[in-house]
């Protein structure tokens, strides 16, 4: 069977996408900009802007001079290419083989598809209609080769089907740039007066190779069908989802557990085969009365370990209300990450922080009490006591700095310093006694002061002069004086207890 290809050209793809989100932009001239070599370059325009004489690749200032009422937005090429891929996946309804064509087009391998729509004309007009309905302006062409379809879609006035075998005739009146040539080659062709393909298509090949190089011939061959063009089809990722319909509506927790176990085993088998692990999972129960009951879990590292995931779900099963019964269970894993098998250990030792059992325990705890309640701390390079450590949510992260050992810090630090009354003899001396909770502590031994300055780039305030003191009962405290002694405003605080 002869091959048939469709080329889809989204004329204003990026701007269409922006105007879909902000419909008021549709009627106004809109361009997208991106910095390039220290200037702002117009990377995409909409139909209105094109009517006003703007072009892609212009400097933004020039465009503004031409059209003062210009709407300008920042271009997001990554986002746009993701949207195009998504649209390509959606187009799999027309043909199983959809490929991306740079940033503004799609190729369909439509061989043997069109008869399902009745004829090729109906097929193509359905494609155009459906895509237009999504809000994108589009031109499309169908021909025997991707190259010819591409040329006709972009350089013919109207979208249309070129009947089998006639694509070369259709190419003849088109300009040379329709062959997807390099800019330099196109310019040289025009300079030589070759403004249409028919003017050079019959020239001797050796002469053409000499003048325009092998890539030129290759592109020409691709368009006329002498050379196969390789297209890379979009392969959508199948969602990680398992379904379990039930013959009888399910009402008991035990049966929910059984259903969950079955689903988990199926899902985990697939994850294991693809060397993936799930980070989040949702179990949905579709009830007889139309409501959906759902419970979800999250793991701290990718996992496809059935007993562990089951344990995480188990706690939450009681929150599902089956009411009259659940007739369909769906288990989804919206977030999946790579999970490469690790080399097995010869013996099971207490593995420290990398131990899988520990991360499974953390998952179980986080599942019940919330991940924000679990803290692991790493040293932070700050002298200010409250900032001398930082929280991390990773179990594996190694500290970048060492914990300080040169200073003695209290075992217990009060959440906020407590104001105390003291009697201190002279500046820079530790207090003689202090009053705390109605009790007078007379100080027998003391060390200090250790001055800790406020980190002005983080917070404004006075410095602290810390003293380690011991009272007559042998209790050890960490006191500090805020500010200089000679200032009127200084105050004393209790900040912690030493062991």
């Amino acid at each position, binding site marked *: 069977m002869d091959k048939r290809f469709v080329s889809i050209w989204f004329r204003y793809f990026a701007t269409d996408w922006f105007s879909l989100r902000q419909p008021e932009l549709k009627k106004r001239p809109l361009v997208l900009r991106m910095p390039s070599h220290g200037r702002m370059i117009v990377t995409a325009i909409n139909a209105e802007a094109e009517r006003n004489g703007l072009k892609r690749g212009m400097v933004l200032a020039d465009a503004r001079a031409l059209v003062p009422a210009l709407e300008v937005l920042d271009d997001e090429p990554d986002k746009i290419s993701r949207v195009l891929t998504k649209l390509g996946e959606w187009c799999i309804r027309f043909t199983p083989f959809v490929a991306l064509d740079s940033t503004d087009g799609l190729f369909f391998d439509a061989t043997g598809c069109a008869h399902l729509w009745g004829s090729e004309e109906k097929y193509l007009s359905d494609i155009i209609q459906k895509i237009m309905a999504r809000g994108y302006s589009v031109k499309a062409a169908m021909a025997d080769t991707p190259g010819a379809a591409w040329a006709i879609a972009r350089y013919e006035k109207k979208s249309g089907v070129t009947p089998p075998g006639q694509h070369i005739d259709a190419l003849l009146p088109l300009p040379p740039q329709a062959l997807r040539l390099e800019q330099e080659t196109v310019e040289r062709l025009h300079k030589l007066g070759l403004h249409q393909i028919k003017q050079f298509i019959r020239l001797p090949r050796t002469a053409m190779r000499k003048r325009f190089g092998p890539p030129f011939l290759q592109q020409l061959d691709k368009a006329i069908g002498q050379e196969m063009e390789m297209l890379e089809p979009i392969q959508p990722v199948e969602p990680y989802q398992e379904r379990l319909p039930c013959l009888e509506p399910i009402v008991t927790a035990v049966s929910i557990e059984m259903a969950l176990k079955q689903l988990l085993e199926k899902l985990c088998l697939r994850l294991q085969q693809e060397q993936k692990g799930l980070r989040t999972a949702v179990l949905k129960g579709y009830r007889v009365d139309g409501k959906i009951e759902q419970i979800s879990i999250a793991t701290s590292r990718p996992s496809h370990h059935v007993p562990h995931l089951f344990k995480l779900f188990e706690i939450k099963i009681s929150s599902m209300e089956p009411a009259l019964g659940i007739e369909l269970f769906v288990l989804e894993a919206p977030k999946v990450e790579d999970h490469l098998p690790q080399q097995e250990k010869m013996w099971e030792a207490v593995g*420290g922080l990398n131990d899988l059992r520990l991360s499974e*325990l953390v998952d179980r705890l986080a599942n019940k009490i919330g991940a924000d309640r679990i803290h692991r*701390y*790493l*040293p932070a390079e700050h002298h200010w006591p409250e900032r001398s450590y930082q929280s991390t949510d990773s179990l594996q992260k190694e500290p970048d700095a060492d914990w300080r050992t040169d200073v003695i810090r209290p075992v*217990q630090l009060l959440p906020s310093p407590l104001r105390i009354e003291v009697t201190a003899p002279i500046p820079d001396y530790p207090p003689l006694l202090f009053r705390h909770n109605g009790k007078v502590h007379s100080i027998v031994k003391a060390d200090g002061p250790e001055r800790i300055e406020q980190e002005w780039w983080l917070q404004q305030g006075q410095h602290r002069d810390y003293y380690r003191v011991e009272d007559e009962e*042998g*209790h050890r405290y960490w006191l500090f004086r805020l500010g200089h002694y000679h200032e009127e405003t200084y105050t004393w605080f209790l900040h912690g207890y030493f062991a």
Partner: protein
Amino acid sequence: MIPLKKIDIFNQLQSEILKLQGFKSASQMALGAGLGVIEKAFPNATFPLGAIHEFISQESEDVAATRGFLAGLLASLMRNDGTAIWISSQRTIFPPALKNFGLSPDRFLFLDLSKERDVLWAMEEALKCAALTTVIGEMREISFTASRRLQLAVEQSKVTGFILRNNAARLGTTACVSRWKVSSLPSEAVDGLPGIGFPQWRVELQRVRNGQPGVWNLQWRKNCLVHISGYDQASSIAYPAKQAG
């Protein structure tokens, strides 16, 4: 056959009972907790690992002393590769201070829970996890049943658990192997130098299953616990030298 003496029979039976109760003999348990003389108070003269220990305290100052002694204990328990979970409803421990006792604060996970009931649940879950070295739980009250549950959890996993009870209203019977009370003593100055010296604690082993309770004065010195018989109350205040200019 020579008839065994009564005392020998007693000893033999006692060691068999200990074995049944899960206490290992000293030779099996190479790891000493670095307690020195105190270890003699325990059955087989070994600090029981894979068990629950209870610490009681009344005031904030005693709480700090208890944390200090416990940190000293943990240092030899955790060595370099151990991991610990510290569960509390009102956490006051200052993570960087653990380094002063030879512990790596980044090998600790701190769980801050709002209810005591959650602390108990989390502690039981954590004690079942054999990947941990130790689990520390701070709670005010614990019933015998709850402590029994914890004890059953550690018998499987061999994790050592510590319960820190502050301001407990009722000190009932628990299934813990020991009950400790630590209070601070005046520090000992280094070679008569002024200022605060090595921290000292009075450690009371109030109850110990199959062991001998006792009271000791201990000092934390150069990253280990040192037993001291007495102490001299040197009173001196370190005054900073007046800086010139």
